[in-house]
């Protein structure tokens, strides 16, 4: 058994701490604010295998399989529901692109299919079918409650002995050669140190700061924080827009009905580079822009009230694929999820924990694809299909 430090109490850090504990490791988990405070508790809840490249499709296929058993495994109601993702095409070229993506997804066992607008209307009763030609529909995609999922992992992790600390900020890493020897952290104004055998940087938007503490170049893994906002309506009758519905050509705008309270969450690709890592201020241009798209997708939304708007970060890498792997002998990273951390967490956490504990993993994660050193080599992957 070795002592592993996980830095970052978002879904990736917490789920990996749980997986490491399952493998018998002694884990200490650091979160500088409250759990989930970075990106996890600001996410739009969606989970999909509809990607446009093999690596992400295979990873998400495995992740969805894990999601399907997670409620039972963690013994906690996390509101996971396979209500699907419906992408909508507005042009013939887009229909063609959808068909190509569907072929690729089908090749790896993801059951996406092309559907007509009549069927789309049955799935989403408030949909305005008129602007759209066809839909790419995968009923196995879905959504879950990010708050409950994170705490489900956390409660189980603690039961297994994980020392999970919030409001505890990592301030330095002690490195000797290519090994991290100790983690220094501040809690209640006091700085303390713990000797460790391995460290995982799961700080997502904050990950470059942790890499710098490890004596690496801050931009070795070039992650930039983009402000991604969401708006939510009052609860509507369940069943109005359960799948995530997205016409990619409308600035990646999307709507998805919250599986728990029935409010409609509205997002769009109206992004701003964050002015800093505390920039959580919602903006009016987003509110107006996203609601224009949302009411074009589902006109009855005009009569709903919005109750809330908030901002979080998409921690983006240049190719929108996360950086997952080993950076030094005993220093690992899983960060830069570009808006996909929540959905990928069950698979990535298992893969990273197995890599750290055993040096290899059974998860179909293409390590070369997500190699954190690819940016330094100037080797970008094809851009991961990111919406919003």
């Amino acid at each position, binding site marked *: 058994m070795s002592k592993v430090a996980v830095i970052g109490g978002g879904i990736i850090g917490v789920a990996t701490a749980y997986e490491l504990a399952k493998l018998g490791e002694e884990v200490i988990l650091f979160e500088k604010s*409250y*759990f*989930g*405070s970075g990106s996890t*508790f600001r996410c739009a809840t969606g989970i999909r295998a509809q990607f446009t490249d093999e690596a992400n499709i295979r990873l998400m296929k495995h992740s969805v399989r894990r999601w399907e058993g997670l409620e039972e495994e963690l013994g906690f109601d996390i509101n996971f529901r396979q209500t699907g993702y419906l992408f909508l095409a507005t042009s013939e070229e887009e229909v063609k692109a959808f068909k190509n993506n569907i072929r690729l997804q089908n090749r790896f066992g993801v059951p996406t299919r092309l559907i007509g607008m009549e069927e789309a209307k049955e799935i989403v009763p408030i949909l305005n079918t008129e602007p759209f030609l066809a839909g790419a529909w995968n009923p196995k995609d879905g959504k879950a409650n990010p*708050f*409950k999922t994170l*705490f489900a992992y956390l*409660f189980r992790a*603690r039961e297994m002995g994980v020392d999970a600390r*919030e*409001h505890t900020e990592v301030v330095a890493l002690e490195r000797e050669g290519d090994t991290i020897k100790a983690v220094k952290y501040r809690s209640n104004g006091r700085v303390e140190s713990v000797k460790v055998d391995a460290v995982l940087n799961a700080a997502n938007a904050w990950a470059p700061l942790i890499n710098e503490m490890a004596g690496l170049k801050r931009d070795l893994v070039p992650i930039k924080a983009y402000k991604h906002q969401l708006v939510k*309506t*009052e609860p509507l009758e369940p069943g109005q827009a359960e799948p995530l519905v997205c016409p990619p050509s409308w600035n990646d705008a999307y709507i998805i009905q919250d599986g*728990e*309270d029935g409010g409609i969450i509205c997002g769009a690709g109206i992004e701003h580079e964050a002015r800093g890592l505390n920039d*959580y201020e*919602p903006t009016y241009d987003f*509110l*107006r822009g996203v*609601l*224009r798209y*949302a*009411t074009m997708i589902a*006109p009855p*939304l*005009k*009569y*709903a*009230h*919005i*109750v*809330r*708007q*908030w901002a979080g970060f998409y921690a983006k890498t240049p190719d929108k694929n996360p950086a997952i792997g080993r950076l030094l002998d005993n220093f690992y990273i899983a960060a830069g999820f570009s808006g996909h951390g929540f959905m990928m967490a069950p698979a990535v956490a298992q893969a990273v924990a197995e890599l750290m504990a055993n040096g290899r993993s059974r998860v179909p994660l293409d390590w070369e694809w997500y190699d954190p050193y690819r940016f330094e080599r100037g080797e970008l992957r094809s851009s991961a299909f990111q919406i919003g």
Partner: protein
Amino acid sequence: MSGKVIICRCNDVTIDEIEALIDEGVTDIEEIKRLLRIGMGPCQGRTCIPLVLSILAKRTGKKPEEIPLPRARVPIRPVRVGVIVGGDDE
């Protein structure tokens, strides 16, 4: 106080549920808010947040002023979508 005392009227959250969560070690108000959905209904926490603060203070021995408030969410009152996108014109 015990039994079915409702603290959050938007989402029907009782004092027992809040106290049980605090006893499980969830003492950050941002976390309590998200797990129980207090302050996330149409009233935007006007009724429940001050009550949760005092429950939290009593249960953890902190002074209410030492407990940070959850981040406020706009709009402060629900607004009809049509008002923002410009009425009924398609």
